[in-house]
């Protein structure tokens, strides 16, 4: 049967989005089906993410927008999968879209309907902590931004239809069925939170101050019900003592599920830390059984939570909670380390609820005929974590096992990687590229600007006097045509804009409407269709940052709208057409490391038809897996390895270089050149390739001589040695009476402050095997935390059932191993039951995984990529780009990134390969249009640009004669930091450069504002602060209308001269908003903002200007409220200071006084 080059992705959470983006970028048509109203999933509800405390919506929202407007992705919201037929490569699927009762195409997301709707309903997005209307949008940043009617609650009054100016509402719309042909299906259904309500576990639902962790997450969120204030539900008071109860619904056969939900330990630590950050007086206490911080840098986070934030950890599982009826406080009983029972009162209890399979998984599995495991999660293949039991159907994320966001993203890419292989023959068959007219050459023409001002129904028109703004715009220089539209984004207006461009021969277009963050691409596409370069467009945000936030001051809002239009015109006059550069891609890849991860990645690429160079430093393939026989789940690793090596060796597209060393790596994405020596320094080879995958792996920790008698006594061996004995010399085990296993050897200590992730499972695996061989043998496992995350918990339970004894020791009191009369004795200190002594015939040390420091650092230098403190490679973004490096074209997987099991390494390898495919599958890679440019005539070769660039995209090329800086357009991301830093003004940031922004500043500062109101020029970064300001608009948080905003891509792109210019032009105050430190979209651009603005503060103070006239504030995309409050506060402060002229006059008076004094003295 013929294969089809399209893919159905079910579930629009982060997993579904990532899989869709990867596939769409690799040349497949994607249908992304989401059962709710918007993509984003649970991640959109989160406040921050661990372990970096990144603002969740800040990092997610750009992804949502990107997925929403991707030309190869069709979003199908409110839609479920009904039926499936066919075979891998060619499925027929039937989808059913429940009616939204409005036309998705027409709805502009303005939200007037929700304001007028008379029916109040519970807001499920806020977990029932606030209200919304019967017609609503899931959350303000939702993609697609479409409202829908809740049919259960709607009373059919018809008001929404009455107020909808876009005429989107149609009560007669019916459910719609669609049949699609797709080549493969990716399931990314996600999970449900465990609901402790039905059984009133821990009094949830009965006691007001017992809430779930997801509710607490919403409470923490700046855009949540309490706008970031932590208030307890019973009385709106900040809870001082907050107890977090772990494992609610997890590791509990009675309530919830047997397995471990993997994420609760970390998110609880995060919630405790963020709570503490929000309000100093909160004292968080976490009650947990084991602290399962198994991921990269997780243990450090727990450590910081305890030491820096004072989060108290108590090892106890609370059995029940009692409420004090008067105060609604809660009493918890627990046993402390000394074995004493203590009862303590808390103001708020947060239940860390676990993850259950999605409520629709079961039904869907039946429809798709795929197998589930005993927990009702999707069953996957042992060594292919993304393959379901039915070929052609792949899974990713929580659908197969609870896991955190990075692992989910890895699996999403891995699922895409699996699809890549299945459908590689039909790649690019269904994606369509739009035929566009030839671009008109506008260079040399004087600007002819068209201004289109939007009423947005009543959203703008109800506050701003739009006809007046149109009249005003018509008088502005170079404006040829100005008009107003009811909805500028509607399809007929798009046609109209194209006609007007033609009729008036316009060469610049300005739309004054909503935010460029969502609508710029649409209008850019429109003017491109009319033959204009898409960068000849500007958008004045007169809705989100004008009419919505100044609803009670229509006159002032109209003035502001005029100013914003004038500023846009000033900028538009200086806009220049930009071209995206195109680079040819070499369709070959290099994989460094020949372990399981490296081989899997190489095979994945080769199976898609890309030639691969596989570099292995040792003499044989297989890496560390050569020492592993079985997995915990009893899958044969050696079998897998044999099979993998066979396939790799016999693949004609894979070139294997054993015993190889890399001499040099040159070039950049699409075109790398690598020189290697292989076969024991005998042969050299140089080859070109388009991408690099790093899969160098790690190795087992070797205990120091004498550490736990290792190397001194032959009965003390490593866990891997024990495994070898178990699988090759069974007889030996039969002669033993007692084995002691010691965990965390070389992990979680000062030298290696991270958890090695797999040692607990390895120990349990070997313990079970020992029991199988010799059931009478006594096994004792000495541990700090048993970290059998996910379904591995089952084996922990099994081991205990089989009689394996687990004894915990405290971190600071490790067991001692002594040699007594030729016998091995182990001593453990226990404060509750007294000290213990165990005799052992054999001691197995569970040695951790350590990175190959020197090798990693050498390679890192060659690739110009970073390693972390533990010498593992550091990915581009811990949460959302786990398989990429910040440098384009280089990817990573397996234990070179951090500790991982074989199964996880395989997923990562497929993920890295999938990410690489997004480049390799293209013939031509297009670069960003908005990048920095160097004028060689002005460059003084100081290399300051290279110092601030976080992407290694700019810098002086010393080897090429003239010492002049150069921008690599492939690597430049367009933040403009280098342009702001360049002392010679040799670097220009295109589109947001000096020539565009300086005229804007002039216009912004010249504005007239109402009496006594200070003039504020605000620079906001596109990703966080501008988004935050937009959110203030969407949430209708009012603030004074005297701010004129200038959008820049990154706050790091603002040179000092901009700020001084603003003051010179007459601004009373200057505001700079950027992402929170550490959250920068461009890695660390805001660090440079901080440095420059600190200098500015000193400069203006030295000039006699009150430093309070300058304000810098980090505002995240979820902090709309905070943005509004900040502006209010700043305005009030400036109002007290009066106009800037006051500062000048004051100085003058003082001088006069001094002069007088002098005169007196001389007299």
């Amino acid at each position: 049967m013929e294969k089809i080059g399209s893919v159905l992705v079910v579930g629009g959470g982060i997993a579904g989005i990532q899989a869709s983006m990867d596939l769409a970028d690799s040349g497949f048509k994607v249908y992304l089906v989401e059962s709710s109203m918007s993509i984003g999933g649970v991640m959109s509800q989160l406040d921050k993410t661990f372990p970096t405390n990144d603002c969740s919506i800040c990092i997610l929202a750009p992804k949502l927008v990107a997925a929403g407007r991707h030309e190869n992705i069709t979003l199908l919201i409110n839609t479920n999968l009904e039926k499936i037929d066919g075979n891998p490569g060619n499925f027929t699927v039937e989808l059913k879209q429940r009616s939204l009762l409005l036309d998705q195409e027409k709805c502009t997301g303005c939200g007037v309907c929700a304001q007028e709707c008379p029916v109040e309903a519970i807001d499920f997005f806020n977990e029932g902590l606030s209200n919304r209307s019967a017609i609503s949008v899931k959350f303000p940043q939702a993609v697609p931004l479409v409202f829908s009617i809740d049919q259960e609650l709607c009373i059919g009054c018809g008001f929404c239809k009455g107020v909808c100016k876009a005429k989107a509402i149609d009560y007669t719309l019916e459910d719609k069925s669609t049949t699609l042909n797709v080549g493969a299906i990716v399931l990314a259904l996600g999970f449900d939170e465990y609901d402790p309500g039905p059984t009133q576990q821990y009094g949830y639902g009965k006691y007001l101050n017992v809430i779930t962790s997801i509710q607490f997450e919403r409470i923490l969120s700046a855009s949540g019900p309490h706008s970031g204030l932590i208030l307890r539900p019973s009385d709106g008071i900040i809870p001082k003592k907050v107890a977090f109860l772990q494992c609610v619904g997890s590791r509990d056969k009675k309530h919830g599920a047997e397995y471990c939900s993997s994420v609760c330990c970390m998110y609880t630590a995060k919630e405790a830390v963020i709570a503490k950050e929000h309000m100093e007086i909160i004292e968080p206490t976490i009650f947990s059984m084991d602290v399962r911080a198994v991921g990269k840098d997780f243990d450090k986070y727990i450590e910081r939570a305890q030491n820096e934030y004072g989060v108290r950890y108590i090892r106890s599982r609370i059995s029940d909670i009692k409420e004090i009826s008067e105060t609604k406080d809660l009493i918890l009983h627990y046993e402390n380390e000394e074995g004493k029972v203590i009862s303590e009162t808390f103001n708020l209890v947060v239940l860390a609820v676990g993850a259950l399979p999605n409520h629709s998984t079961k039904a869907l599995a039946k429809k798709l005929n795929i197998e589930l495991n005993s927990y009702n999660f999707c069953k996957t293949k042992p060594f292919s974590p993304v393959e379901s039991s039915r070929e052609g159907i792949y899974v990713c994320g929580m659908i197969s096992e609870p896991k955190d966001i990075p692992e989910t993203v890895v699996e999403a890419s891995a699922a895409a990687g699996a699809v890549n292989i299945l459908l590689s023959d039909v790649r690019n068959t269904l994606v369509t590229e739009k035929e566009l007219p030839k671009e008109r050459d506008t260079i040399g023409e004087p600007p002819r600007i068209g201004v289109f001002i939007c009423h947005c129904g009543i959203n703008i028109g109800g506050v701003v006097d739009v006809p007046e703004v149109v009249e005003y715009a018509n008088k502005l220089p170079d404006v040829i045509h100005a008009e107003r539209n009811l909805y500028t984004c509607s399809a007929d207006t798009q046609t109209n804009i194209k006609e007007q461009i033609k009729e008036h021969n316009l060469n610049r277009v300005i739309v004054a409407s909503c935010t460029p963050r969502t609508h710029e691409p649409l209008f850019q596409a429109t003017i491109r269709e009319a033959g204009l370069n898409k960068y000849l467009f500007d958008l004045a945000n007169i809705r989100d940052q004008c009419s919505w936030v100044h609803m009670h001051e229509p006159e002032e809002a109209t003035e502001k709208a005029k100013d914003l239009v004038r500023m846009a015109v000033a900028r538009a006059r200086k806009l220049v057409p930009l071209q995206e550069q195109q680079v040819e891609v070499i369709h070959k890849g290099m994989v460094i490391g020949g372990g399981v991860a490296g081989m899997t990645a190489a095979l994945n690429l080769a199976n898609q038809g890309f030639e691969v160079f596989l570099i292995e430093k040792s003499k044989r393939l297989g890496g560390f897996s050569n020492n592993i026989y079985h997995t915990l789940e009893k899958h044969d690793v050696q079998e897998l390895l044999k099979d993998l090596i066979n396939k790799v060796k016999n693949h004609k597209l894979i070139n294997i270089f054993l015993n190889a060393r890399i001499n040099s790596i040159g070039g950049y994405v699409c075109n790398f050149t690598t020189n290697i020596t292989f076969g024991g320094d005998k042969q050299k080879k140089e080859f070109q390739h388009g991408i690099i995958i790093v899969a160098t792996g790690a190795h087992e920790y070797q205990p120091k001589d004498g550490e736990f008698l290792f190397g001194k006594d032959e009965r003390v061996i490593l866990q891997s040695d024990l495994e070898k004995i178990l699988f090759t010399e069974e007889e030996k085990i039969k002669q033993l009476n007692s084995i002691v296993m010691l965990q965390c050897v070389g992990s979680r200590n000062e030298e290696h402050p991270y958890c090695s992730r797999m040692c607990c499972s390895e120990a349990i695996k070997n313990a079970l095997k020992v029991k199988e061989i010799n059931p009478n043998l006594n096994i004792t496992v000495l541990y700090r935390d048993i970290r059998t995350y996910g379904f591995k918990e089952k084996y922990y339970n099994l081991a205990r059932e089989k009689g394996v004894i687990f004894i915990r020791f405290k971190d600071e009191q490790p067991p001692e191993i002594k040699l007594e009369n030729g016998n091995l004795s182990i001593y453990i200190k226990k404060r509750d039951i007294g000290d213990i002594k165990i005799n052992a015939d054999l001691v197995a040390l569970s040695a951790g995984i350590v990175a190959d420091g020197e090798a990693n650092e050498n390679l890192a230098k060659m690739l110009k990529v970073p390693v972390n403190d533990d010498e593992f490679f550091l990915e581009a973004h811990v949460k959302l780009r786990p398989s990429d490096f910040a440098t384009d074209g280089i990817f990573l997987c397996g234990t070179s990134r951090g500790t991982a099991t074989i199964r996880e390494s395989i997923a990562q390898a497929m993920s890295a390969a999938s990410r690489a495919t997004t480049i390799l599958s293209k013939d031509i890679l297009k670069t960003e249009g908005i990048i920095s440019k160097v004028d060689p005539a002005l460059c003084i070769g100081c290399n300051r640009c290279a110092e601030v660039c976080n992407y290694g995209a700019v810098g002086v090329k010393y080897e090429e004669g003239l010492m002049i800086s150069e921008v690599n357009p492939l690597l430049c991301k367009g933040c403009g930091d280098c342009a702001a830093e360049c002392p010679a003004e040799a670097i220009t940031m295109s589109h947001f450069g000096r020539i565009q922004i300086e005229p804007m500043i002039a216009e912004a500062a010249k504005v007239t504002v109402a009496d006594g109101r200070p003039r504020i020029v605000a620079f906001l970064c596109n990703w966080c602060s501008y988004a935050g300001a937009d959110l203030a608009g969407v949430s209708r948080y009012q603030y004074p209308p005297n701010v004129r905003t200038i959008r820049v891509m990154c706050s790091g792109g603002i040179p000092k001269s901009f700020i001084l210019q603003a003051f010179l032009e007459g601004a009373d105050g200057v505001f700079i908003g950027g992402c929170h430190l550490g959250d920068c979209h461009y890695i660390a651009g805001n660090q440079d903002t901080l440095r420059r603005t600190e200098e500015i503060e000193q400069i203006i103070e030295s000039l006699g200007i009150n430093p309070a006239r300058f304000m810098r504030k980090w505002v995240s995309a979820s902090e709309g409220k905070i943005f509004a409050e900040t502006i209010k506060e700043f305005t009030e402060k400036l109002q007290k200071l009066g106009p800037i002229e006051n500062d000048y006059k004051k100085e003058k008076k003082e001088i006069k006084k001094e002069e007088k004094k002098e005169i007196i003295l001389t007299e």
Partner: protein
Amino acid sequence: MIITKQKDIEEIYDMIKPYSKILVAGCDGCCQPPRSINEAKVLAQMLELKARSEGKELKWKAITVLRQCDDRIAATTLRPFIEEYDAIVSLACGLGVGMLNRIIPTILTFPAQNSMFGGVENNSENYFAEYCETCGECLLGVTGGICPMAGCAKNLSNGPCGGQVEGKCEVGGYIHDCAWVKIWERLKKFNRLDLFTNYRPPRNYRIWSSPRFIHIYESSSNIEEKKKEENV
């Protein structure tokens, strides 16, 4: 590189107070940190704001010169503008300021920088360190490339003195490294301690006294003769 430090804005402003139209000239040359057009612009903006706070109007233009210490480059860059301006503020080192005053005789040039020393930037630690005092009698050949003039507070030719404790100099309170200890370590590394133990004759401080000038195109015989004269 010449390490410079910007003067206090008050001081610069006081210098140009009598003038209302000023040309601010950056220098693309060797001064560190770079004082090119952007720095010139920021300074000009600061001066305008300062002037405004004194109730005055100030007109300015910011330009940059490839090398202010090169008379031909400086003259050709600046001359087209000078007629319109009353004074020049230079962001170059003292050499640039001197040069502009010489080649533009019609108006005064004022310094915006204090020239500190000849030094280099320590990239990783973000500071500038003095490497050479242009003493005229280079000892670097026998000190492993570390200058005892720039590095030793007492300008010793045969160090270290008794004032060093654990490699730190007593002058300034044991903060700075003792150059002579560093010289010892470096020569030891290359197994050239013979250089260290060699006696170095007293320095000829006469050639280090201002004003100094050198005829670079003088014939070698002439130089030989001069040396003899000096030795006499």
